[in-house]
């Protein structure tokens, strides 16, 4: 303990270098933990885009593709599924709820999703969060449209505005294939921000999707003058033929694999059901290289931080030869000299770790809302992850090892100096 207190006072005496060293270690620690937290946050955000859904069901094809268009609204479905098949599983005794999606139309680059009230009631993200409205309400009429938070903000729409949806998916700037000019929708509500792809879509009822295509024949729009006027269309007059995919939740988790098998072997239509968790992990593995690169960079930042400490301790040794001789004279052996210097590097690193962790948590706390707002990345302010703790432990262990380098040098000095330092 005497040596620890000596080490502490010695560091305190060299305020400037100590402060600088502690700061450089703190910054690298903050970066290390920060990257780790972002990594975990990104992963959790990613995995949290959809929760409490047991299966995603669509037409047979790639499982990744089904996940991409159903959850992330990326790419297109190659095939739709019939509404009859959907109803069969919706009313399946093992199934608790389903959320149907009908995709294919867009509005100024944003996808338009046909769905039903289950979407607002049952969809969960980030474990157990549900959707809620910032203003207005969910679509009730055929021509009602609810907006995701990003859509409302980007296009500056509010409740009551008219929205014309476009057939097919067009870029924000380009013209769509064909606007459904004759059947405009009215904004009935705006959803709260979720930081998931939900924010970037418009939501109408399944009947709405059918309604805008009611007078189409064989994939072509009606001839001018032959359109069915919007006011003649009600929920009862439109028929839903098909949807694109649906999310499914079973009453009991244990039924999941059985229902999946039942869907995959459904004889009336080629369907496939995927487990969202498994497919999300598959997808994460393919895009997860960036996090490895980030971790490698951080690792080198730590190395640089510790090397800075090594340099500052090592260069201080020459001016400390006298001090070492005094310690020798009052009976401090080589072991104590070595411990003193190892303690110094350890104390510097502990201080750096504490400050660094403080910095990163302070920063996360301050900037969490901003990051979520601008990057859609929710970084949880949580206790360090096991990996983070392992990193901290490794840095401390490394500091002990590194401390032996100046310690050894000091030991050599004391051997050659004895009680008369060569200054």
């Amino acid at each position, binding site marked *: 303990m005497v040596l620890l207190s000596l080490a502490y006072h010695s560091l305190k005496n060299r305020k400037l270098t100590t402060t600088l060293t502690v700061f450089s270690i703190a910054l690298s620690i903050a970066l290390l933990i920060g990257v780790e937290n972002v990594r975990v946050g990104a992963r959790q955000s990613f995995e949290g885009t959809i929760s409490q859904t047991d299966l995603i069901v669509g037409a047979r094809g790639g499982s990744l593709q089904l996940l991409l268009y159903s959850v992330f609204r990326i790419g297109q479905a190659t095939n739709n599924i019939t509404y009859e098949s959907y109803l069969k599983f919706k009313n399946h005794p093992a199934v608790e709820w389903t959320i149907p999606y009908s995709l294919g139309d867009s509005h100024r680059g944003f996808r338009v999703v046909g769905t039903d009230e289950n979407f607002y009631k049952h969809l969960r993200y980030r474990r157990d969060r549900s959707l809620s409205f910032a203003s207005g309400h969910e679509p009730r009429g055929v021509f009602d449209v609810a907006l995701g938070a990003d859509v409302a903000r980007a296009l500056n729409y509010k409740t009551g505005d008219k929205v014309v949806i476009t057939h097919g998916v067009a870029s924000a700037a380009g013209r769509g294939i064909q606007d459904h000019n004759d059947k405009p929708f009215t904004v009935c509500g705006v959803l709260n921000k979720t930081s998931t792809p939900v924010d970037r879509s418009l939501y109408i009822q399944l009947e709405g999707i059918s309604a805008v295509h009611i007078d189409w024949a064989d994939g072509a729009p009606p001839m001018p003058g032959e359109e069915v006027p919007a006011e003649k269309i009600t929920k009862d007059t439109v028929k839903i033929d098909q949807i694109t995919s649906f999310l499914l939740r079973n009453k009991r988790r244990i039924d999941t694999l059985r229902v999946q098998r039942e869907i995959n072997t459904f004889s009336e239509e080629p369907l496939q059901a995927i487990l969202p968790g498994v497919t999300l992990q598959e997808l994460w593995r393919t895009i997860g290289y960036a996090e490895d690169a980030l971790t490698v960079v951080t690792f080198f930042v730590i190395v640089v931080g510790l090397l800075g400490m090594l340099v500052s301790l090592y260069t201080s040794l020459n001016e400390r030869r006298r001090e070492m001789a005094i310690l020798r*004279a*009052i009976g401090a052996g*080589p072991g104590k000299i070595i411990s003193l210097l190892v303690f110094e590097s350890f104390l510097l690193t502990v201080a750096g770790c504490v400050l660094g962790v403080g910095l990163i948590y302070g920063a996360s706390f301050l900037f969490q809302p901003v990051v979520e707002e601008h990057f859609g990345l929710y970084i949880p302010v949580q206790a360090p992850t096991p990996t983070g703790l392992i990193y901290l432990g490794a840095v401390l262990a490394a500091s002990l090892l590194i401390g032996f380098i100046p310690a050894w040098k000091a030991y050599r000095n004391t051997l050659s100096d004895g009680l008369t330092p060569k200054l």
Partner: protein
Amino acid sequence: MSDPAVLCENLRFAYVKDRPVLDIERLEIARGERVFLFGPSGSGKTTLLGILSGVLTQFEGKVDVLGREIAKLSGSERDAFRGAHLGYIFQLFNLIPYLTVVENITLPCRLHAERRKALGGVPLEEAAKAAAAKLGIRHLLAQKVTSLSVGQQQRVAAARALVGAPALIIADEPTSSLDYDHREKFLELLFDSCKEAKATILFVSHDRSLMHLFDRQLDLAVINRAQTVATAE
């Protein structure tokens, strides 16, 4: 306690082989004796102190300090022995710059349990205060050592060497950076404190104006045969 404080027999030491720096047939210092050791620069004074304090170990012959044959001690035993039983005062810069006066004085006792035991239950701070009071630096205890004058620093060094009543005080030209009045004053204080603790003093200096204050004067140039060989070359 009948052992002499220092006993050297046929002591030979060389930094470089065949170029001995020290060659002493016999040197004995009795317990409680105050010895003034002098000699020109390069006569091996500092080397002898290094051997007696157990820092230089590559010597031949027999060296007993306070009844212990230091060649037979292991490295850590020598360090512990030095810490517990020896007080060492340098010519200059005796103090750890980042500690206060009182922290400097108590450091040997905090590093060595045996030295602390020698206080006989007196609290560390009290022992430091007592030592400081004897040397007239009681009022400086809480100060940083960097704010002290050289004379004050040497007194703090003396207080540190004396606290815990070590049996042998080795002082390597502790007064050479003081002016004459301060030298005598410093010595008086040192002697008073040592008398109380019955400590032996080995005082090294080339300043012979102080030698009359000591019980015995030793000329290293006379007792060190290596030196005569070297000068004869």
